[in-house]
């Protein structure tokens, strides 16, 4: 399928989802779907570095929080529309992603993972001590109940939902495009064997910097509307463990080698979490993630997508 065809399909699906949600018009549906879509973006962004290149990033929460706090800063400094905030979040997180990549990519495996975790801790400490964006007290973001777009008046939560839906589609499109391009092949060689990649002429350092920048930028974009969604942002919610753990668990459960994996994982795990939050308690969230991660690592180490691919391959052979 060509990229144009794929983007058209995405747009149609996006429009359909938007229309259905608008017809149902239940605030909770927008709230829950927003969270799931946000995880689709985070999982896809994580997968660009973690799945394609094989570099495990434990610092997703830091990039997400950077996007969120860029918005808080702009809210106080010079309020702009949320789509612009998303771009600002992308630039800030992208730059930090590039810097992190430059400083840490000579590290491999668990050392790289620990360095990303350290980045999250350092950034959280900075934010906690920065009064302008609320420090440890947190910051309130107050917006109108409705937003006027042209002559339409849209409920704010529906507006946020639509933005996150659009971002999720852009992220999926980007991931799929990378996967099928020269860049995607280069990323895969980094995951497989960096020494052999260099010997084949792949500029590994440059590709890794592209991956950390892109991955960071998408995470920042996912975080940018968050203060408007939640209304009150404090460091412990922006840097929450949920984001780091979910961004890793969702691609792992879905499958890391293809763009479908993070999507499947995020929808599955995200919905399960939303369901558990309503029916049991919000504290069960991480328990579900943990249990599913353990189960999948044992039953399907290559994720759901990997499981299906293996089944298909086995059937073809017989």
């Amino acid at each position: 399928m060509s990229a144009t065809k794929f983007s058209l399909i995405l747009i149609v699906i996006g429009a359909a989802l938007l229309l259905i949600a608008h017809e149902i018009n239940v605030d909770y549906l927008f709230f829950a779907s927003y969270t799931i879509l946000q995880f689709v973006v985070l999982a896809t962004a994580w997968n660009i570095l973690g799945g394609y290149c094989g570099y495990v990033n434990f610092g997703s929460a830091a990039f997400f929080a950077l996007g969120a706090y860029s918005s808080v800063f702009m809210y106080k400094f010079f309020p702009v529309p949320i789509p612009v905030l998303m771009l600002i979040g992308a630039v800030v997180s992208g730059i930090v992603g590039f810097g992190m990549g430059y400083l840490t990519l000579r590290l491999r495996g668990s050392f790289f993972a620990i360095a990303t975790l350290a980045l999250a801790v350092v950034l959280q400490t900075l934010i906690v001590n920065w009064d302008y964006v609320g420090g440890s007290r947190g910051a309130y973001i107050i917006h109108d109940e409705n937003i006027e777009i042209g002559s339409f008046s849209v409920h704010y939560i529906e507006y946020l939902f639509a933005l996150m839906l659009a971002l999720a589609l852009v992220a999926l499109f980007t991931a799929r495009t990378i996967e099928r391009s020269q860049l995607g092949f280069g990323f895969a060689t980094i995951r497989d064997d960096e020494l052999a990649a260099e010997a084949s002429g792949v500029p590994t350092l440059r590709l890794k910097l592209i991956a950390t920048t892109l991955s960071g930028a998408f995470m920042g974009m996912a975080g940018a509307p968050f203060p408007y969604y939640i209304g009150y942002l404090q460091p412990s919610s922006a840097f929450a463990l949920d984001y780091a753990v979910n961004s890793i668990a969702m691609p792992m459960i879905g499958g890391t080698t293809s763009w479908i994996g993070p999507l499947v994982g995020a929808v599955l795990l995200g919905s399960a979490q939303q369901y558990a939050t309503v029916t049991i308690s919000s504290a069960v969230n991480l328990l579900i993630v943990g249990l599913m991660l353990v189960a999948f690592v044992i039953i399907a180490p290559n994720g759901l997508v990997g499981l299906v691919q293996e089944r298909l391959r086995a059937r073809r052979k017989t």
Partner: protein
Amino acid sequence: MTALLHVDNISKRFGGFVALDGISLEVRPGERLGLIGPNGSGKSTLVNCICGTLQNESGSVQFDGKPLDGLAAHQRTHRGLARSFQLPRPFHSMSLADNLRIPLLYTVHARMGPLRSAGDLDSRCAELLQMVGLAKKAKQLPRDLTQVEMRKLELARAMAAEPKLLIADESMAGLSHSEIEDILALLKQLNERGITIILIEHIMSAVMSFSQRLAVLVSGKKIADGKPEDVVRNPEVVRAYLGQ
């Protein structure tokens, strides 16, 4: 004729251990050079310094008239240096054809601009697999290969970059007699196409039948360099291999 590869007095240490101690070496275009030496004599370190996997501390490496010092490994590959690894290092998540696609995409493209269409790429991959006799397995993964096929894949991937110089680092270790013949024939065929080859090997019969010239490394120093028949009779070489 001027040398294709000119290694000038390079040294490399690992902590207190001197792995290479002032090695100089010249390779002429089209030549078949054998490089031998006991285990730990610095052969692989020399290859790594030439190819940019390691950076030498002193001395310099010139290739095709230009210095390579300070260049990263992939830049040297772009200049026309290719190597195969001692232990095969295929891209294990990719099919054989895709393994060869990487140097085509990243080296041949970088050198000549994106000339190749998708169809050209496919046919070039098929051609290379044909050359090493793996055409039937193009869609399989490297884990399905035997040891000798893995070595052939390694050589094919090095060849895909269309190098001027190929360094084959122990590409025959652990193979049977007939398999060695296979690889030797392949290397000779490549040499006939004009590719200069440095063969690093322990199997003496293979080295002797292949090399036009032989260089010997012992504890990071080059102790002999010349015609293979003369070198193996050199008393220093005999002492290094057989002891006093």
